[in-house]
């Protein structure tokens, strides 16, 4: 089993605050890895640094063996790492379908002249973008199908916005997908449904999944491996049971409770 994504000694600080303090992490092909840890443990910063939103201060990130440090987010996405955001970021005035079609952007190439001259290749490509995007929306079954696809994204319900964000990430044809708290704000039924979706991403789409999650039922249900972080470092790693039994992890959670 080879590692698709390797993070080595990653450091990121904002002023004096260390969000990541030398984090090591590897994700193997076809794995679902959950990252857990109390608020402020640096989980979202990890995603932001991996996807090129912030440059790391130290450390290396390798994707399929090549370093991706210093690449712009769009380049990272093009290589095959897609993501969602902790607080949903859609393009609210574009339609649901168009949102997904933006995801296909980095897999297509027609440009200005093709659009102006309506070249056959452009039309074919546009057709392909459309089909592929519908396929990505179709991953969530009837939730994002039919008339909804022509509605602007801002009319969607909260759970559907989360689903659309994931569909948009799937539409970039990724190898690895990073999900930042995908079940936040969802009701129990929706959470269960989403848990199945995450597993299906691995099993049906052959994706590698890195997920930040707070809901322990989801973590338990989907993870091949769990990584626990605190203060920007890895404090435990292993199967769900191993991590859950780790005294440091228990302390990290209870400690925040005592402090809060």
């Amino acid at each position: 089993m080879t590692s698709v994504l390797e993070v080595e000694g990653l450091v990121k600080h904002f002023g004096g605050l260390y969000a990541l303090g030398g984090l090591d992490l590897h994700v193997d092909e076809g794995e679902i890895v959950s990252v857990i840890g109390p608020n402020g443990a640096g989980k979202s910063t990890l995603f932001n640094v991996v996807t090129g939103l912030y440059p790391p201060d130290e450390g290396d990130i390798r994707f399929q063996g090549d370093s991706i440090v210093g690449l712009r987010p769009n380049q990272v996405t093009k290589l095959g790492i897609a993501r969602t955001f902790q607080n949903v970021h859609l393009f609210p005035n574009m339609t649901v379908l168009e949102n997904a079609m933006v995801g296909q952007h980095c897999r297509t190439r027609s440009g200005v002249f093709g659009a102006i001259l309506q070249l056959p290749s452009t039309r074919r490509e546009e057709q392909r973008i459309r089909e592929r995007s519908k396929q990505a929306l179709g991953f969530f079954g009837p939730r994002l199908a039919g008339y909804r696809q022509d509605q602007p994204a801002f009319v969607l319900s909260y759970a559907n916005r989360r689903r659309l964000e994931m569909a948009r990430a799937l539409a970039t044809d990724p190898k690895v997908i990073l999900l930042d708290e995908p079940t936040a704000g969802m009701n129990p039924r929706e959470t269960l449904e989403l848990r199945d979706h995450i597993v299906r991403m691995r099993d049906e789409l052959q994706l590698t999944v890195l997920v930040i999650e707070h809901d322990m039922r989801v973590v338990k249900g989907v993870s091949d491996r769990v990584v626990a972080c605190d203060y920007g470092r890895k404090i435990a790693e292993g199967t769900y049971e191993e991590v859950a039994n780790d005294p440091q992890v228990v302390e990290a959670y209870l400690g925040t409770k005592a402090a809060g």
Partner: protein
Amino acid sequence: MGTPIRRGVEAGLIGGLVLVYLAMVGMITKFDELVLIGTQVTLGLVLLALPPLGAALAAARPRVVGGRVDRLGPLEGLTAGVTAGAITGGVIAAWLVVVDRIGIDRVRSVFIAVSPALVDVLTFGRGIAGGVAILIVGGSALGALGGAWRSLRFGLRRPVAIGVGVVLLMGMLQRIVPTILDELNIERDWLYSKVTRGLTWMGATIVFVVAAATAAFWIDRRERTAAARAEPGRADTRGIARTVGLVAIVAAAIVLPHLAGSIVSEILGTVGVYVLLALGLNVVTGYGGMLHLGISAFFLIGAYASALLTGANLVTAFGLVAPRFSANLNFYVALVVVVIIGAIVGALLAAPVLRLRGDYLAIVTLAFASIAVILATSNWLQPITGGPQGLRDVTDAPLFGISFQDPQNFYYLVLFFCSIAVYISWRLAWSRTGRAWNAMREDEQVADAMGVNTSRYKLLGFAIGGAMAAVGGALFSVKVGTVQPGSFEILVSITVLAVVILGGLGSVPGVVVGALVLLGLPGLLSQLEEYRLLIYGGALVAIMILRPQGLIPNVRRSRELQEEERTQDAWQEIFAQKEQAAAEQADAATAAATLEEGS
């Protein structure tokens, strides 16, 4: 009854101040020169009537207080309206008295627009006392109308408003419509007076009745078809209607200048040049979401480049001289070069400032435009640009022996290029490129994270915008025959911005309509021309506050709200928040519990 009167007083005071402003800035006097109907109804009079009417409408409008719509009853509305109108009239009357006491000449030594002519307009030529009475009584009457307006039935209100609007528009088009009618050999003396040039009363009445009746019929029909459309299985006729409308517009665009004469063609030529500039800006600002105040620089570059490439001459003390750099290309060959130059300069301007935040980008583009004008004017570049005198003898752009310096022919040239630009804009909007711009405008960071190379699309936007504006510049140089730096000031950028904003950011038809309104109308009416910039400034502020989507909004920017899911969503959000709060409280506890459970 207290509230309506208070509202009336508030609105009336504001209305009065607006009226005093309009008077002192000279608009009322100037606009009084333009007779719209009969001999009495001038544009100045209309302007005089607007503040009391507007104040009354504002005073009687329903407001939202604490989440509930607070509507005034008919009588209350009337009270508020009359109060507002009377106060508006009272304020201007009081101002008139004060001015009269101080002495008009003394006031005029500072405020140059306060002239006897203004007093004459405000008093209707009946002396101060008579004027005061008329202003207050007239204000109250207009106020009553405004206050009662909302109590009228919608089916009545709308046709009347449309009728009045059409009459005023016909009055303002007094230099086009009669000429067309003459050209078509249609008797027109019943409609337009030969003496005042405005509508006759009979003509105005007929126009009003026709317009109002058509509007009433149309509203009625629309309501019925809307009801019919709700039934499933009925063919939608809107597509056909749209095609017919489009054909009609194209036909009008081709035939109209022939009928309306060369003055109209001349004006439409200018409008066309501005449509090109505005389409260029629309790509950058409307599609890409980057505020670009340097469009005038591309206008300048296009004009100078095409002039130099086609062999224009410098004006010097020793007569006409060839500039330091020049070529003698055919205009259409030069145009290709101009397009390339515009695109390259656009990309070069954007390249170093890609990472700047929007408002800084705006200032940098503004600085760029200023530099361009200063350099073109300077003695340093005088051997190339001709300095303040500019370049002369810009070549014609003959094609099959047709000269395009004739305004009628030039119109068709510019129409051709505008059509191309419209086509390009429209194609781009619905392409992969347009989608990338859209995503970037909505959320730059997220677009980047979704694989859109935002730097590239910013450059592309600036390049295409620059190329379109440069074509506008090249055509402009053909139209005028000379190139002078004064034609390319920052004000051009701001005018173009006003055109795009008025029409609606990102909306191609909006750009055309915006250019027609903001450049066509002032071109037709010299009285408006003088206050053009004032109106642009006011319009920019007013649109941003009242209707940021513009006259003809872009589809994407004004999606109909789907109430159903929206409400559901609101609930969901509350639900989610509650749950989140509960979850956060229990977060550490549950985490610990599940951990224990796992062990």
